């Protein structure tokens, strides 16, 4: 009896409390499912300065650069694109063409399955001596003056203030005017929804600070994407270097935001 015992009791109680608390907390941790690094916020930003800010549509000016000299025609971009958007078989938002040039400057182009399976074998159907051959990835050019937007009778395809050309599937009536108007054949009519579809430069990813799916998977860095208003971005540097950058079908006056590095004049 007396003081020492009471003190011991107190200590014992505190000890048991601590242990129990720890055990309960520990078991709770096991029971509550912890998210596995899933949220987009935890993944490092690929395009700096986007996340956590309110999207200001007038703030960015995006550009896409395809480096022909680095494309190895592996078709990763086509695979990623198809999986990202569940594109039905036989339709392409992006594709890779193979160009073949002989000594008479005759040009042969093919794109089996849009490059989706990669290029597993050399071309056998043309028997010419090859002078030059290269791959050209194609996608939406995101024109500054888009012909597809002009021809849409219901306002279903439009240019957002931040420069992306998108399709509103709820308004599209599937008249396919835009498919005919596009000089780059970047559009198709979805066989399921019967609405026009096209490459969006992965608008949903870009708005969350991620690179477009095709840029993300490209193993050689042949596809580059970035903000021209950000002076530290790769595209800004490339565009301000003494590199030959060309756009497709310049004479159409569409002013594409898709540039090609090292493009030969045979490519249309």
């Amino acid at each position, binding site marked *: 009896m007396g003081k020492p015992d009471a003190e011991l009791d107190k200590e014992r109680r505190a000890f048991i409390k601590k242990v129990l608390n720890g055990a309960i907390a520990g078991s709770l941790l096991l029971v509550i499912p*912890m*998210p*596995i*690094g*899933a*949220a*987009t916020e*935890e*993944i*490092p930003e*690929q395009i700096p300065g986007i996340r956590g800010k309110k*999207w200001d*549509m007038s703030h960015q000016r995006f550009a896409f650069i395809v480096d022909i*000299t*680095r*494309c*190895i*025609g*592996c*078709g*990763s971009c086509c*695979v*990623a694109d198809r*999986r*990202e958007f569940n594109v039905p078989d036989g339709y392409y938002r992006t594709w890779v063409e*193979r*160009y*073949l040039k002989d000594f008479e400057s005759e040009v042969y182009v093919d794109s089996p399955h849009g490059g989706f399976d*990669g*290029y*597993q*074998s*050399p071309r056998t159907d043309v028997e010419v001596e*090859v002078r030059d*051959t*290269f*791959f050209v990835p194609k996608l939406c050019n995101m024109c500054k003056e888009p012909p597809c937007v002009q021809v849409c009778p219901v*306002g*279903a395809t*439009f*240019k*957002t*203030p931040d420069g992306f050309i*998108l399709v*509103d599937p*709820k*308004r599209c009536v599937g008249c396919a005017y835009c498919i005919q108007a596009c000089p780059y054949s970047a559009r198709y009519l979805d066989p399921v929804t019967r609405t026009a579809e096209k490459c*969006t430069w992965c*608008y*949903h*990813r870009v*708005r*969350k600070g*991620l690179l477009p*799916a095709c840029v*993300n*998977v490209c*193993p*050689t*860095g042949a596809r580059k994407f970035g903000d021209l208003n950000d002076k530290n971005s790769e595209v800004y540097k490339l565009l301000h270097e003494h590199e030959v950058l060309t756009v497709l079908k310049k004479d159409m006056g569409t002013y594409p935001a898709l540039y090609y590095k090292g493009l030969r004049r045979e490519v249309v």
Partner: protein
Amino acid sequence: MKSTYNSHIKRIVLGLVVFAVLGFVGKIVLTPKSFGKYGPYRADAIDEEANREIRHMTNASCLTCHPHEANIHLTGLHKTISCEFCHGPYADHIKDGKVYGKLPVKKKEEIKVMCLRCHNKAIQARPGEVIKTIVMPAHLEEQKVKVSHTCDQCHQVHAPLKYINRAKKIVGIKEKN
């Protein structure tokens, strides 16, 4: 109604008024809510497109949960290759932060097909300074291995020169270039 000298005008005016009212009401009813906010289109469609499901994540997102693979993948020549290209999209594996499905791991012949997508020298269009290419049975003969070998028997698929460099170190072969 008894015809008067101006009844035809009244009828026309009434018709026009009805037409205008119907048109006006129809325009209000049929125009989508956010139409015309930025231009002649539905402004809400921008946010709808922006909220589309992200199916591919980045290598960083895969490697946070697979540290063993990260150790190998990030040290090799294949570090620029996306995990999801060979294994499939993130969304087929993780849903709402929980493991939802198993992604396939490529085996044997599939690996060979995968390798040759990039490393086949027979496709002349591949720029040589970007990637090392080989001709297929010839490479196996040159290295004095069976022609039935698959690529992954010598090359760790995540870091292709891992085993080879280690073997060279043990045997003491200097890198020849």
